[in-house]
């Protein structure tokens, strides 16, 4: 599942009259792609950025992802019937076989954003993906027996939160920033000091405007040597306050003047098992938050 900074308001039909929106056709097994596209389309900043992407004459029209995506978004916005996604998959380079393959939606999200970001370089909309989705956190390591510390700043487009053993999204965040000990056969190699016992933790410097959270609803069963899906109950509120408890998730040098309060915008839902299932989305399009 991928929770994007929006919330589902109500169940919507694929009917212009009922909701003012239209749906996407399933080519074969492309509901994961359709769910992601609907979610991205309903991020106005993202949609406008796509519209402003240039379609250079050097590219083949049929192989241009920006062009296909612009066409798709335009039809979603103004068409009265459901929209086909064949042009887009063609621009991806997919053939019929790929249309019938099931995939992970978060994986597609990563690949699609990477492609778009590459296409946006040296254009008026350069850096749009980064502006929307990128956050930064610090991986810090502190040796126990010697005076050695190491802090490394890293960026992220999404966070992978554990589900097993966690009751809600706050419990997952607590586990994410929990301090771990590196010891035994897992010692840390400190410069000039060799292998040392150390503490390792994560703290956030800043959060992106649109925070994408992936719930790790999977584990591996070593006894049966197979993947298993975790179907435990997991709660997430309509509003997510990451400044709670005096900003325990924030690094000491984080800018605390920024308010880190998120509204739930959309939820991508997986129904089924690890080897196959169905994706659908809940989206709150009426939010005026940009």
């Amino acid at each position: 599942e991928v929770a994007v900074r929006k919330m589902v308001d109500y169940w919507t039909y694929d009917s212009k009259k009922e909701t003012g929106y239209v749906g996407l056709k399933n080519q074969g097994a492309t509901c994961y792609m359709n769910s992601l596209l609907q979610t991205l389309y309903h991020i106005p900043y993202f949609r406008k950025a796509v519209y402003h992407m240039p379609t250079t004459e050097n590219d083949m029209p049929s192989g241009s992802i920006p062009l296909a995506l612009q066409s798709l978004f335009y039809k979603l916005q103004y068409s009265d019937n459901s929209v086909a996604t064949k042009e887009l998959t063609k621009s991806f380079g997919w053939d019929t076989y790929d249309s019938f393959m099931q995939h992970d939606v978060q994986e597609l999200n990563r690949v699609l954003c990477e492609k778009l970001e590459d296409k946006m370089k040296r254009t008026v909309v350069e850096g749009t993906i980064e502006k929307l989705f990128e956050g930064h956190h610090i991986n810090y390591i502190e040796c126990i027996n010697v005076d050695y510390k190491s802090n490394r700043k890293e960026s992220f487009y999404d966070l992978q939160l554990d589900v097993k053993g966690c009751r809600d999204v706050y419990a997952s965040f607590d586990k994410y920033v929990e301090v771990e000990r590196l010891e035994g056969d897992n010692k840390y190699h400190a410069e000039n000091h060799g292998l040392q016992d150390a503490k390792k933790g994560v703290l956030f410097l800043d959060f992106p405007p649109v925070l994408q959270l992936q719930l790790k609803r999977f584990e591996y069963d070593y006894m049966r040597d197979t993947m298993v899906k975790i179907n435990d109950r997991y709660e997430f509120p309509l509003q997510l306050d990451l400044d709670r408890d005096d900003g325990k998730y924030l690094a000491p040098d984080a800018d605390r003047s920024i308010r880190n309060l998120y509204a739930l915008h959309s939820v991508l839902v997986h129904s089924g098992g690890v080897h196959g299932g169905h994706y659908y989305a809940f989206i709150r399009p009426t939010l005026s938050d940009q």
Partner: protein
Amino acid sequence: MAEANQYQILVRLLDGRTRCLRFSTTTVSGAALLDAVSALSRVPAASLRLVTGRLDVSPSSVLASSADGRFPSASALLRLRGGKGGFGSLLRGAASKAGQKKTSNFDACRDINGRRLRHVNAERRLEEWKAEAADRQLEKLAEDFIKKKAKEAGRGGVKAAEVDKYLEKYRKDAESCVNAVEESVRASLGKRKTVPKPRGGEDAKKLKIWLGKKKVQEDESDSDSDSEMDDDEGADTKSIILDDGNSSHGSKSEDEKVDLGSITESPSEGETSGEKSGRSESEENGNGVQESREPTIRSEGECGDFISDGVVEHEIGVVDEHTPENGVSALSEEVLKPDVKAEDNTASASATSHLNDLEAPPVEEPANGNISPLSQEPLDLTIYSSAAELEVLGMERLKLELQNRGLKCGGTLQERAARLFLLKTTPLEKLPKKLFAKPSGGGK
């Protein structure tokens, strides 16, 4: 500086724990990293996803470490594949449905030659049927054989029926034998009742003497009544003999009984019965002769026993001395008889006179006995309720009663009793003629 050769990457595994991986080069290929993480977490590399903050680590990607010897941290993930529905499901469904609905009947299709498969298959089946003709014949033979066995079983049933018939015949014969034995036993018991009278010996002697004369007369006259009288005398003689030797006497008595039965049967027939009766009479005469001889011998024995008595001695002397003397004694007796005749009966028939002579000895000796029977006669019929009760009176008394009433006095004890008992319910005039003694015979 030697230590600086170590380059590290922090990987968060599936369970959320972080591991340090060390490499000796500043760059690492995605494949190598995936293999390392796969070995560490024991998850197949194909199922594993490895992501850094911004990039997906694919086998073809390359990670570069920073100046401080650390790579970007990574997270290990799995995949939740989805894509259900859409046109693909229609294709999959259609495939399975088409498979289910496929027909297996191709009779309407044509073969290479253009003939319909229906006809080609029919021709092939016909040839197979012909080929199996031999097998069908063998099956028929087997069925016939089984039927024959069944018929034999039926014949066995028929034999059983024959056996049943034989059993029935056997039972009938057995029953008849049993009845005959019972009758003979009853007859023997009846005769023994008369045995206790010791004085009967004298009567027997007289009777024996007269047997000879009567036999001669009977041959001349050929009358049934005479034959019956002979039978009675034989019975008397037998009873006497029984006193001496039971076993031998018993056997003789049985033989005579059989004869008596035959005699009784003959009267029922017409003229032919008369002829038969004559034959039976001749036979009886022969028997009588034999009996007369044997009794005489035995009577001599008895005389020996009575030597002490004077009267007895006189009688013995008469018998032993001469046969002509016997004739004289007979004449003397005849003189006595007329007196008795005058007293008892007015009838002049010679037969009746003979009968009276036979009766005389018992009458003379027990005078009281003569009176008592007369007084008892009317009482008998009223007192007795069945023929069986009359049998108790004995052969002799039944004979006297029947004679007085003019009825036949021969036959077995039961027959005499039954004949006499009829008078209780039926008057003499209404009785059938068969039962009456023949007057013509008497006249003769």
